[in-house]
């Protein structure tokens, strides 16, 4: 592990992106300090004015400070995205490891089920689920979690399959170690770094999905600031106040770019083409194939 840490510190792109990601996460955490105004306070006298000294990004249709709403909105948007990514990663990785490690009918059942879920259009399902359950943040999280785990399951299964035959796992099995012990102590720590790339890049994807749902009016309810919802509201005033849609979109794009690049550089660090370490080659090959 320390080998990767050293490699990561030497990788300039990774360190820059990591710093950027940390800053993006810190901004909403320190929202009360950073935001110049109250995000839900109306100021009708100053409604729909473009950016100036008092309101750097301008104000919306009822005079709320857009910058403040963006800073506070990160709390809703990022929190949901992290929650969803956490849920789907745990579900997918557990299913994938179980399928890969136990094999047989368990593997067949899980793989078939994953194939079926992947064979259906995810976004359409999320839209349908949320609209029937009733538009709310909770239902958005449920719907996004129900369809988002398949990729993790597929990738972790492939990683475990490659890992299972390696000498040290065979040895542990011959030594009579408990299966769950082997999974926890040997397999999980070895496959997790590779899954980290998927997790990082999924943050951007889920953010795009979430903002899409908010745009359709399916997630957050007013007056809670949320980026996708801000876009949705601003759409009505596109002729008079284009900045209402410009800044929220820009914030989303920045987040997607940072987390995607972070994932890319993480992949570079883990890529065996830059180093030759015993036993990693086969696993990486599988992993690259699954991710290409």
């Amino acid at each position: 592990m320390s080998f990767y840490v050293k490699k990561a510190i030497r990788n300039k792109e990774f360190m820059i992106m990591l710093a950027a990601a940390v800053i993006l996460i810190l901004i909403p955490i320190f929202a009360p300090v950073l935001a110049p105004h109250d995000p839900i306070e109306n100021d009708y006298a100053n409604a729909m004015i473009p950016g100036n000294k008092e309101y750097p990004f301008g104000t919306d249709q009822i005079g709320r400070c857009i910058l403040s709403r963006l800073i506070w909105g990160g709390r809703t948007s990022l929190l949901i995205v992290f929650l969803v990514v956490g849920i789907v990663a745990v579900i997918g990785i557990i299913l994938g490891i179980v399928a890969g490690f136990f094999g047989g009918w368990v593997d067949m059942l899980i793989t078939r089920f994953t194939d079926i879920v992947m064979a259906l259009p995810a976004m359409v399902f999320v839209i349908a689920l949320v609209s029937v359950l009733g538009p709310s943040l909770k239902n958005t999280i449920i719907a996004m979690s129900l369809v988002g785990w398949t990729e993790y399951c597929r990738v972790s299964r492939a990683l475990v399959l490659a890992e299972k035959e390696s000498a040290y796992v065979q040895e542990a099995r011959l030594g009579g170690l408990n299966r769950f012990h082997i999974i926890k102590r040997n397999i999980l720590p070895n496959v997790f770094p590779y899954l980290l790339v998927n997790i990082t890049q999924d943050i951007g994807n889920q953010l795009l999905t979430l903002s899409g749902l908010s745009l359709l009016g399916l997630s957050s309810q007013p007056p809670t600031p949320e980026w996708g919802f801000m876009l949705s509201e601003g759409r009505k005033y596109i002729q008079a106040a284009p900045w209402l849609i410009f800044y929220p979109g820009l914030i989303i794009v920045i987040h997607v770019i940072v987390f995607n690049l972070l994932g890319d550089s993480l992949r570079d660090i883990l890529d065996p083409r830059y180093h030759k370490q015993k036993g990693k080659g086969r696993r990486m090959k599988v992993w690259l194939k699954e991710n290409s």
Partner: protein
Amino acid sequence: MKKYIAGRILFVIPIMLILSIFTFGLTYLSPSDPVTLYYQSMGTKPDKEMVERKKEELGLNDPFLVQYGHWIEKVLHGDLGESYKYKTSVWSEMGKRLPNTLILTGATVFLTILFAVPLGILCAAYQNSFLDYLLRLISFLGVSMPSFWVGTLLMYAFGVRLHLLPIMGSGDLAHLILPAATLAFWMTSLYIRRLRGSALEEMNKDYMIGGMAKGFSRASIIMKQVLPNSLLSVITMFGLSIGSLLGGATIVETIFEWQGVGKMAVDAISLKDYPIIQGYVLWMAVIYVSINLIVDLLYQFLDPRIRLGGGKS
């Protein structure tokens, strides 16, 4: 190969089964009662007795499987129920809207093939040139920007500022340009990146050196060998992208008021018009599943390398 094709076609059965259970289950999941909703949409405030009588009449008190059986029988006969809002059958409403969605997605796929194939290959052929960097930057932005944001920006630039194109609406070519361009920008970017990647992988293979040693020009090897091979590996991804395209089309249709099935479904959400939402899910999924089936089968015929084995990988 026969075994694979048979297996692939048979795989559609469990997919359809799960899909139909999910679609039917949607009304089961909903917190509000469909009969009450139905009466409310007619403008009457139903009392308990009326609701109960109607429920009994519609068989809504039967067990889940019995109801599911009735429903699937009706669906197989082309009856998706009646929309609460339009007061017509979901089927006829879908018939009106589906062509619009197909035109939009079809135009997007057409534009994607038109631009992504030549640009992706150019990127690979002139790797690390200025053109490559520029296209990589643009395509990276293209996949990072949410389609609804691109759509609204295009709407602002071409509709509000330049007055070149209509902002919203549906039907003719002028209205099609902006929504199709929005979706195509995302999809073209995605495929430039994918095609570039797979073409570069192909160019690293031995036949490239072999061909050059035999005296073929680099350009002719790229056109005749690298292009078909890298297109093949991109085709399988194409089927999967259709799912995102259909989801994206729903959002873009809503923004541009393009009267497709996505717009119809989104309108139905606030009215709790569940038969419409069911019809939407069913149709989108059927389109997606069939396109993936076609793509997978097509792949078997197009790639001679995998015609030999029986395994599915």
